[in-house]
């Protein structure tokens, strides 16, 4: 008893230290475990539930100010923007018509319509209510969570393009890792040349890094090339815009091995996003498809089996 009293501070320190290390180990193991749903640890989930109303209330003034500023800026340019959009819509309609005609002519329209049904996923609008406080890491907190059918592994997009991936979920919140995060990797292709590589976060600079998987031929990649998700790996759907190649770093043998990419999404102004309520088949195999949107029939069929 004397021992406990004498060393109570050291014991408290050691106990809390071990608890913290255990939390870290469980989080690490949970993220990598096959069969788990990468849910937020129960304690973190409980703490997030406590902080959720405070966080939403605290985010209101910032979002309100941002909306006001955006609204004022939009009002100033509305006439020119309207004219530009009309012209763009007309051009796109014309292009769409031509493409449809070409597809009908080639007889692929029916098959593509079937593929589209399989690809399309319901989009859940979500608001960014918090940002990563750690330097060197880039995550955001969304106001939609497990209650709203959000699960780890679901892609997060904006009107501009791909923003990131849901990594953790709590009942009323979700954490999404942005493309900027050094732990993020997206299999991508150059839209023009189909050169394939991996898009990785390059830190606070706001640029991404496109690391090419294969040796490129001259002209495979140029500044201004659009980069889209390839669909390989099965985490992100194919064809989502990621960004534009900004400049090329030539290697000693002349063939570039990596290139900086300016992201399509303005991460500094990220406020409203959409969560694609569908995980890829690969992640469903890894994490299990229970309670997934669009999988209700599958789940019930599985239960019946």
């Amino acid at each position, binding site marked *: 008893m004397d021992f406990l009293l004498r060393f*109570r*501070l050291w014991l*408290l*320190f050691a106990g*809390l*230290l071990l*608890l*913290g*290390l*255990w*939390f*870290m*180990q*469980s*989080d*690490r193991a949970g993220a990598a475990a096959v069969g788990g749903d990468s849910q*937020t*640890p129960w*304690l*973190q989930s409980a*703490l*997030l539930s*406590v*902080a959720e109303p*405070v*966080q939403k209330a*605290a*985010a209101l003034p*910032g979002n309100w100010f941002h909306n006001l500023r955006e609204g004022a800026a939009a009002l100033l340019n509305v006439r020119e923007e309207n004219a530009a959009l009309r012209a763009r819509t007309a051009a796109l309609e014309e292009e769409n018509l031509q493409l449809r005609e070409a597809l009908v002519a080639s007889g692929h329209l029916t098959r593509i319509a079937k593929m589209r049904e399989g690809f399309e996923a319901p989009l859940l609008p979500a608001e*960014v*209510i*918090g*940002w*990563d*406080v*750690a*330097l*060197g*890491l*880039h*995550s*955001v*907190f969304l106001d939609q969570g497990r209650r709203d059918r959000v699960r780890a592994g679901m892609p997060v997009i904006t009107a501009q393009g791909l923003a990131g991936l849901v*990594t953790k979920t709590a009942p009323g919140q979700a*954490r999404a*890792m942005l493309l900027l*995060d*050094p*732990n993020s990797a997206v299999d991508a292709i150059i839209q023009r040349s189909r050169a394939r590589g991996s898009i990785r*976060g*390059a*830190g*606070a*600079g706001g640029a991404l890094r496109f690391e090419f998987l294969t040796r490129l031929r001259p002209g495979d990649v140029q500044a201004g090339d659009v980069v889209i998700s390839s669909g390989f790996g099965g985490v992100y759907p194919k064809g989502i815009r990621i960004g534009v190649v900004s400049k090329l770093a030539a290697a000693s043998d002349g063939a570039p091995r990596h290139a900086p990419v300016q992201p399509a999404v303005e991460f*500094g102004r990220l406020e409203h996003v959409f969560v694609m309520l569908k995980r890829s088949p690969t992640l469903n195999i890894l994490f299990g498809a229970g309670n997934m949107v669009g999988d209700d029939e599958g789940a019930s069929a599985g239960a019946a089996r």
Partner: protein
Amino acid sequence: METLLDKFNINLAAIRYLLWLLAAVFAAVLQSVAAGVFGAAFTPDFSLLLLLAAALLLGPAGGLCLAFVLGLGADMFSGALFGQHAVARLMLFAPARIAAQQLNLRRKLPFAAAAFLLVMADTALLFALGDAFALAAHWGWRETAALFARALLTALCAPPLLAAAVIMNDWFSEYPQRALHLDVQPRFF
């Protein structure tokens, strides 16, 4: 005169610790929201400031527990592993407590300097822990500049936060520190 606290037999120390806990949650939320508005680099580390204030104003056991809770609060709003900040804050509490005992951290400049150094040490510790658990984190000159900006802002915010923490702590203390202040000469540092 019998106060409400006496009437309902409310423990002042319990209220004081509850207030510290609420301040910890509020600091974590405020920091996360402010990081979205100003960027992570231009947001002071409020929870580290609370940790330093706790090292100064609370006992070692209470301070250790609060340091752990402050870390968990930071973990809630971070892409880091859950528990990473908690372990880092727990380890930082010891030098903060020693500094609080050895130096006069109630003065503005020493407190601000300690806050600056604590931000640096915290980041180094977080990276070391992340590295040990195979969590990638990018570090370059931009991150170094961001770290200095955050440390500087934290140091600037340190004196008013310490004043607020002292008021909060003394208000619900059985032996208010304000009653023990013997020097009445105004001193800036």
